């Protein structure tokens, strides 16, 4: 059971081999008999497929031609999603923050990558009159049109596929992951840096079946470790740690790996007395000011086994494209932004991008506008850059904050976390923002 977590870059098309700044100067002239598509989505991962699906189901795109290009083969699978709450705590202190929804609304969902892909594939098949999906096809080069129509040169974007065929499109959407070929071909600047961390993911079997509806995340100095529930007996692990440690974890045998996980969740090795007492002090103060129900503290589950062959590692970094849009081109998902998995927001930002872009494109189509026109594309860019920049900055800040063992910062984050835990409206805001 390849339970790959719904983390942003996993589902995307395999990272393209690095190509230099391609063909941004090459222009296409002369008419051709290629089909002119209205929208081509390059990259059939979670975000790309969802984009194609959303457009296919949009009422104003009924008679438009949409194409999805996916380099991999078609995937089909079966599984069930579940719903959860979220608990996060610090390894250097007792401070913890609990996000919970007392009412019956679900706070969030954790859905496996494969499940999502399967659902999307099915939906795409249902709108196959509008959306064409080309599997095993990879765009090799892109040719951009002139800024405004020159005599006899085609105003559309030309795409050359690996098998030599060409197509034209009025709007190209790049959803091809953090090493986006579309972004490179357009020559868009990408602000990026690598964290000195890799993430290890694996599927774990719990030692006893429980009502597994809590996601646990513990911030170790080397990086956060998170346990995300999949079913009553299964959880998914995302452990961000240094490159060497990650390589070790992947190569060590099962028992040692399980031990490492358990000790990461349970060990008190990083506590210092000072911080502990400071934390307790604030805890009492808060309890005094705001007497609240003191639910018994739930403990994270312990792990018994790990699924063979489910251990994978990949490097982590931050990335943000300076521009999300160009005439006749838009970036969504990881092509536009890449984030640390500690907040679980990577693919969610991508889905948010889809929402915004589909809204703008739908309005434009209903107004009979040229889909590649910058006027509505810049609207999408403004919307999303505002949201994503904030989230990226916050995630990066959290990552740096929790990577240290320095006492003042630990104290700061301990109190900060406890205070945030105490202030319910703030927590509600955070939950609302994260679940948008």
């Amino acid at each position, binding site marked *: 059971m390849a339970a790959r977590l719904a983390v942003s870059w996993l589902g995307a098309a395999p990272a393209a081999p690095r190509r230099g700044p391609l063909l941004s100067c090459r222009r296409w002239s002369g008419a051709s008999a290629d089909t002119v598509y209205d929208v081509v989505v390059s990259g059939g991962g979670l975000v790309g497929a969802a984009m194609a699906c959303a457009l296919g189901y949009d009422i104003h795109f*009924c008679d438009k031609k949409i194409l999805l290009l996916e380099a991999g083969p078609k995937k089909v699978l079966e599984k069930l999603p579940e719903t959860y709450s979220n608990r996060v705590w610090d390894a250097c202190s007792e401070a913890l923050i609990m996000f919970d929804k007392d009412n019956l609304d679900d706070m969030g969902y954790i859905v496996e990558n494969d499940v999502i892909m399967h659902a999307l594939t099915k939906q795409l098949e249902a709108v196959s009159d509008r959306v064409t999906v080309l599997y095993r096809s990879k765009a090799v080069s892109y040719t951009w049109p002139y800024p405004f129509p020159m005599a006899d040169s085609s105003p559309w974007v030309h795409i050359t596929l690996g098998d030599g065929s060409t197509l034209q499109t009025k709007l190209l959407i790049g959803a091809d992951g953090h090493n986006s070929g579309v972004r490179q071909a357009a020559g868009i600047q990408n602000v990026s840096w690598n964290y000195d961390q890799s993430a290890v993911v694996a599927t774990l079997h719990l030692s006893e079946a429980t009502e597994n509806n809590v996601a646990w995340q513990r911030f170790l100095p080397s990086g956060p470790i998170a346990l995300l529930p999949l079913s009553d007996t299964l959880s998914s692990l995302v452990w961000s740690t240094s490159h060497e440690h990650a390589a070790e974890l992947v190569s060590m045998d099962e028992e040692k790996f399980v031990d490492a996980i358990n000790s990461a969740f349970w060990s008190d090795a990083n506590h210092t007395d000072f911080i502990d007492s400071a934390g307790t002090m604030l805890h009492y103060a808060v309890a005094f000011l705001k007497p609240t129900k003191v639910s018994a503290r739930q403990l994270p589950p312990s792990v018994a086994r790990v699924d063979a062959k489910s251990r994978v590692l990949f490097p982590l970094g931050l990335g943000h494209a300076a521009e999300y849009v160009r005439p006749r081109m838009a970036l969504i998902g990881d092509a536009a932004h890449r984030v640390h998995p500690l907040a679980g927001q990577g693919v969610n930002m991508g889905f948010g991008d889809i929402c915004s872009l589909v809204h703008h494109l739908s309005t434009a189509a209903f*107004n*009979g506008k040229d889909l590649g026109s910058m006027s509505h594309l810049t609207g999408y860019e403004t919307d999303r850059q505002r949201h994503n920049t904030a989230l990226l900055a916050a995630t990066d800040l959290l990552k740096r904050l929790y990577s240290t063992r320095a006492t003042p910062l630990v104290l700061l984050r301990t109190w900060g976390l406890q205070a945030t835990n105490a202030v319910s409206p703030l927590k509600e805001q955070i939950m609302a923002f994260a679940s948008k």
Partner: protein
Amino acid sequence: MSLGDICYKYEVITATGDQKLDHVERSSSMIDGDFGHESRNLCVGDLLREGPERRGILSVAVRGGRKLISSGSRFSAVLGSGFRDARPDCPRLTKSAVCSENQLSWTLPIKPWVFSEYKIMWFKSCRMTFACLNRMKSYRYPWTRPYSTSGTTVDSSEVKTFLALAHRWWDEQGVYAPLHSMNDLRVPFIRDNLLKTVANHQPGKPLSGMKILDVGCGGGLLTEPLGRLGASVIGIDPVDENIKTAQRHKSFDPVLDKRIEYRACSLEEIVEETAETFDAVVASEVVEHVIDLETFVQCCFQVLKPSGSLFITTINKTQLSYALGIVFAEQIAGIVPKGTHTWEKFVSPEKLESILESNGLSVQTVAGMLYNPFSGYWHWSENTSLNYAAYAVKSGVQEHQVPAEFVLKEEAEELQATASTNPAVHEELKK
């Protein structure tokens, strides 16, 4: 610069043939090159209609006119029809009058031997001046054949202004940027009002099945969105270059290529063949450029089907529109190219309404539009003192159409009530 001015200049020319040649050629080059001239664009039609003081110029023209008539005859000599035929025939000569690909360059190849014919010509000139002056205009612009008694609706000087910018239509950040962003207002305006007239529509192609005429389509800025929404559109414009640009632009899109047709002509020319064939006529930013609004509206009436819709967007004639629309927009900020608009030709909504109503078109909506030069976006507004849009419906002629008229009247009230929600809706859409 107009024919009247040229005539006046001829007045000052003195004796010898060679000198005349010089002056004449200089004047002709002034016609060709002077696009940015901001003086009031008189045209001959205006001259003929104006009062006695204008006639003074015409008397000058009479004197100078003989020289022009000579040159007119020179044309006929060039063609080989000879001096005996002193009355130049309009349609046959037009094509040859255009001796280069630039339709405006009207060279006067006057040779000295022409002037020996003066005495013969003089007697005919007085009678023929008026007719010839009018026809001279037609030489230059073969499409402006006089229609009915009140003359054509196309203003030749306007044609000149637009010709200079014919290749810039589709640059969305260029000279025509405000017109591009006006689509955010006018396309929903047309679309929503047309959708009200049908019971149900196809999603994705809301205007499919409708025939629309876009008068003064320019480069096709408004024609293409209407085509994308499923309508079959005919776009007409008197400036040939505009039609060429529009044709070229739509040729790359196979869907639009089939739905849109462009023709370089004026409205009067297609009235007979297209009577009562259009569901809607769109005249956006056009009525402030036509000579004769009454004729224009009559033609629109004739080409519309019964209960067809007429959409007009134009600029109001107020002090504010002079200050902002001409002084600020053209001369100071350069939002609109200089010389595009003439304040005297702006039409107030009241005048437009009265003309529409008196020609059998019942006005349903009038809504103000406002342009924000900083953001580049248009907004709906209660205030019609600058730009405004009007929607009128041709009253149904047949008896069974009468109930439809009542329905439309009710809808008119509804429209007025929802006019205030329109700005909100359109701002939503615009965002």
